[in-house]
């Protein structure tokens, strides 16, 4: 296990450098530089600014200069909003995206898994049908449509929740539901299929034959194994949810990172875009390792 983990972590290093390299060259190949904003200034001023940010040097050298700072722990400052540190944006905005993502994750798993379980156990009965119809609708409605419906009905019509903003618990409810419900539908379908399949396995039949009651069979014998596909998906889901939803953040005026990353790309804010991508990449690589380790716990057959 220890050796496996060490090996797994070692493979992350080239992956991480690969990400930085690709990101750097992609970001610099976006047409239009950070000073092409339309703001007027004499060419001499533009030249001074470019020199200040090393933009007048060859790209490979720029990459090395940039990585030297990153490796010494400095993601630098925004070029477009000078004075704004990338680390400031991460510490100020990532928690918001992460909170929203975590709340949406609770919605996705908290609603999706129990409903999927109920549907599997009550297969082809009325509860199953209701859950599946609900899940199909939930999965089919895009989250921005859900957002607008929530804003109009629950916010503007019935004043149950604030229309936007961030900071109070009541402001988390609507965006978390909008972001989490389509995924809850997906998880419910996945859990149902997986539990149904597991319930047909030999060892489950054995458990039944040994006299285990229906609840005990589902909870103790089938459920943990049935969670395998859900776990596999969860890595992707965590990545999807915590990286922030541009649309949801924008509709609910949530100061998250999704919106910021998009704006920085559009504004050719090289340092900001790169810093945020490197931060996300690090996070996602780490999430993958965590999921791999989770397999060990879930499936005793997995050996490394």
């Amino acid at each position, binding site marked *: 296990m220890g050796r496996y983990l060490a090996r797994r972590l070692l493979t992350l290093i080239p992956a991480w450098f690969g990400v930085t390299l690709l990101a750097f060259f992609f970001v610099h190949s976006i047409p239009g530089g950070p000073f*092409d904003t339309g703001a*007027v200034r004499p060419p001499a001023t533009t030249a001074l600014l470019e020199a200040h940010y090393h933009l007048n040097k060859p790209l490979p050298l720029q990459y090395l200069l940039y990585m030297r700072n990153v490796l010494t722990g400095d993601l630098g400052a925004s070029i477009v*909003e000078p004075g704004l540190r990338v680390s400031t944006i991460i510490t100020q905005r990532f928690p918001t995206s992460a909170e929203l993502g975590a709340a949406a994750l609770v919605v996705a798993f908290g609603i999706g898994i129990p409903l999927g379980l109920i549907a599997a156990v009550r297969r082809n009965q009325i509860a199953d049908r209701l859950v599946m119809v609900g899940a199909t609708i939930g999965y089919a409605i895009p989250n921005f449509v859900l957002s607008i419906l929530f804003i109009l009905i629950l916010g503007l019509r019935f004043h149950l929740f604030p229309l936007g903003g961030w900071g109070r618990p009541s402001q988390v409810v609507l965006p978390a539901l909008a972001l989490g419900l389509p995924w809850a539908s997906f998880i419910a379908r996945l859990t149902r299929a997986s539990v149904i399949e597991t319930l047909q396995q030999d060892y489950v039949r054995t458990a039944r034959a040994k006299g285990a009651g229906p609840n005990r069979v589902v909870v103790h014998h089938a459920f943990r194994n049935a969670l395998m596909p859900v776990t596999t998906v969860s890595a992707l889901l965590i990545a999807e949810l915590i990286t922030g939803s541009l649309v949801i953040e*924008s509709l609910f*005026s949530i*100061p998250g990172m999704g919106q910021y990353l998009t704006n920085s790309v559009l504004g050719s804010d090289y340092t900001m875009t790169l810093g945020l991508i490197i931060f996300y990449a*690090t996070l996602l690589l780490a999430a993958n390792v965590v999921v791999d380790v989770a397999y060990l716990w879930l499936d005793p057959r997995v050996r490394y």
Partner: protein
Amino acid sequence: MLVVLLVAGALAAGASHLSAASAHPSKGIAGSNLRIAITGAPDPFDPALLGDNRSIELAQNVYEGVLGVNNAAQIVPALASTWSRSPNGLVYTFNLRHGLHFDNGDPITAQDFVYTYNRSLSPKTASGTSFFLADIKGADAVLNGKAKTASGIKAVGTYKLQVTMAHKAGYFAAEISRWPAWVVDSKVIAKYGKGWITPPHNIGSGAYKLTGQVGDQQYTFTANPGYYLGKPSIAQVSVSAVPDSTAAVARYQAGEFDAVVGLSAAAILQAKANPTLSSQFHTTPIERTVWLEMNNTKPPFNKLAVRQAFNHAIDKNAIIKIALAGVGTPANAWLPPGIAGNVNAQHSASTYNVALARQLLAKAGYANGKGFPSVELDYGINYGEYAQVYELIQGQLEKNLGIKVGLKELPINAFNNELTSAKTRPLLWGYTFGFDYPDAQELDQYLGISGAPYNYDGYSNKTYDRLVAEANAESNQATRAKLYARAENVRLADAPTVPLYFVNQNWLVKPNVKGFGYSPLYMHPWRQVSIRP
């Protein structure tokens, strides 16, 4: 380091609820808190590094310079009580008010301005607007890193600041009234380094102090009781960045904001359709022109008759009515009304004349659009309205002149980058300019004259260049206005562009808020605003 950030992020996640809750805009005693929604995050609050008007109209409450701009966009004394220019136009003397203080109690002296100007010029500061001070004697050496201080900036005693110019610049008073010249406290910057711009370290000299900041979305400003013009009426101003204007309007209706500024066309229509909102809706012209630019150096636009035909084929009133929700002024000149030297009033009759346009196009050899090359019109995604504006123009050119125009929408930086090279520059494109300081020099010098850095249309006329140069150097403001007006008329006769409209600023404000509004440049300073409880 990344691990540190991850941990810091996790810690901040726990703490953010507290700080965010205490800074929430709906908190505070009614009447003492003005809550404003703006369209996006402002720049960090370092005067040397500010760039867009959205940031400047906030920062002007926190910082001030020797001169300022009043609500009529005129240059007026601010931290200087009086100022004068030597007869040769080269030496400016500013007499500071006595007893001025930064918010932290540090006295403000002429030496602080010397520090501020040199700091803005320093390449280490990397200010994008250092050129506002570049006409000062010795500024070049500082800009290029060859000197620490410009010889033309001198403190003569505690309260007298003397600025000597490298050459005559009649627009300098306007330039020095702007943000790179807003005084900053050298002691605070020395003590906190780059961190000085965020509260609680942020120190200015204005009527308000930036006291709270949550991310870059929520700002709290507190009245400065020691302000030299007296304590402002409103104790606290909360500013929230809400990029979606219609969402901001919904929250305004729900009572979360007292004012929403920078309304999109969609939000304006939403406001106009609602009787309560329409009575709280306000609009006023600002100093920004939007125009259609033609590549004067390439056929078919190298022909005057073609350019004139385009000028007469576009119905500007229809554009304003349909694409801009009815707010805006048709532009028949380049310089907007309010900028000295503008001649729009002389050309106020509608230029829309399809018969004349067709006649001119025929004269150029393209009767009914026959033989006219395929033309692409590019524009940047700047404001939501641009797509509608240029689609209307596309339709009008086809209907009125029989000319087919293709549209290409680009991200704003990619669009500007395309224009910088003659190779990639299209034949037609949409362009806009908003004034940083209220002086015709800025538009004419940087976009108008031959070889100007943003003269992408290739327009060149020696008479125009000469008149602009004369106006730039002239000290007498009335004479300058006349010279810019003459230059503008020379330019309009050559029809290098199609002026489309002058932009309006649009906002909603609750009826109990008095004094809130917009000058042709910025939001009114908050010290002029009061709230009836």
